[in-house]
């Protein structure tokens, strides 16, 4: 049992449990908080995968910005608690869970059948070198500079679109 294995066990357990709790809690605020927990443990998993930059970006962008935004909207709307439309349609819910569980078992079977751990040879030193901020930055501003600019325009368009959509009325 090395530290890597222990950390993976802890973070993956938190990740799976918080995901399940998120879709089963009736209150939207508690769901959002479990999603924040899920994102933070995902950042820990990214660290075990030697992706430092993405781990920090995950905490700042997802757990910070996007989830604060979600909580703001929940606060603004104050939606009625979901319990009253949570109970009926129980049969449909069981049906959906069974179907999705079957698909999940199928995916797991395929993953074990294809044995990616035997075909993919991984070196820890190369993996560590890949995830550094320096390496990602160099790649982003040389080979991926056009998608980077496009992402900037996309965010600008989304900002304007959100402002127009959420405005009281068009004049």
């Amino acid at each position, binding site marked *: 049992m090395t530290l890597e294995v222990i950390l993976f066990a802890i973070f993956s357990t938190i990740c799976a449990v918080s995901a399940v709790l998120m879709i089963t809690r009736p209150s939207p605020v508690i769901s959002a908080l479990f999603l924040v927990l*899920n994102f933070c443990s995902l950042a820990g998993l*990214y660290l075990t995968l030697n992706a430092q930059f993405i781990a920090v970006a995950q905490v700042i962008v997802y757990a910070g910005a996007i989830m604060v935004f979600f909580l703001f*909207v929940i606060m603004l709307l104050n939606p009625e608690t979901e319990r009253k439309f949570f109970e009926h349609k129980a049969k*449909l819910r069981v049906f959906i869970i069974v179907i999705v569980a079957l698909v999940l078992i199928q995916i797991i079977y395929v993953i074990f059948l294809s044995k990616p751990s035997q075909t993919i040879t991984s070196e820890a030193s190369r993996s560590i070198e890949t995830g550094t901020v320096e390496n990602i930055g160099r790649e982003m501003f040389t080979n991926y500079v056009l998608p980077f600019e496009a992402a900037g325009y996309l965010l600008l368009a*989304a900002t304007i679109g959100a402002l127009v959509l*959420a405005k009281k009325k068009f004049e």
Partner: protein
Amino acid sequence: MQIPIEYYLILSAFMFSVGIVGVLTRRNAIIVFMCIELMLNSANLTLITFSSYLGDVGGQLFVFFVMAVAAAEAAVGLAIIIAIYRNKLTVNIDQINILKW
């Protein structure tokens, strides 16, 4: 790199399935939206896993762009939810069914 790659892939598949169940069973539009974010994140986990195990930086850059698109999508989607709430005073997706046949 002592952990087999399968474990990460299975965790990702599990999170994706949980997200699908959430999208299909929950009736609150905001929670449906959060489940979509969960599914995006499980796809991100797969990309990072392969990027790390193959030593290729492309997957991590792709995750970075996915984050940018997710931020844009969350902004526009939540603005749409606010606009719908203003018109219909509900976020229950069973009652928002104008386009349903």
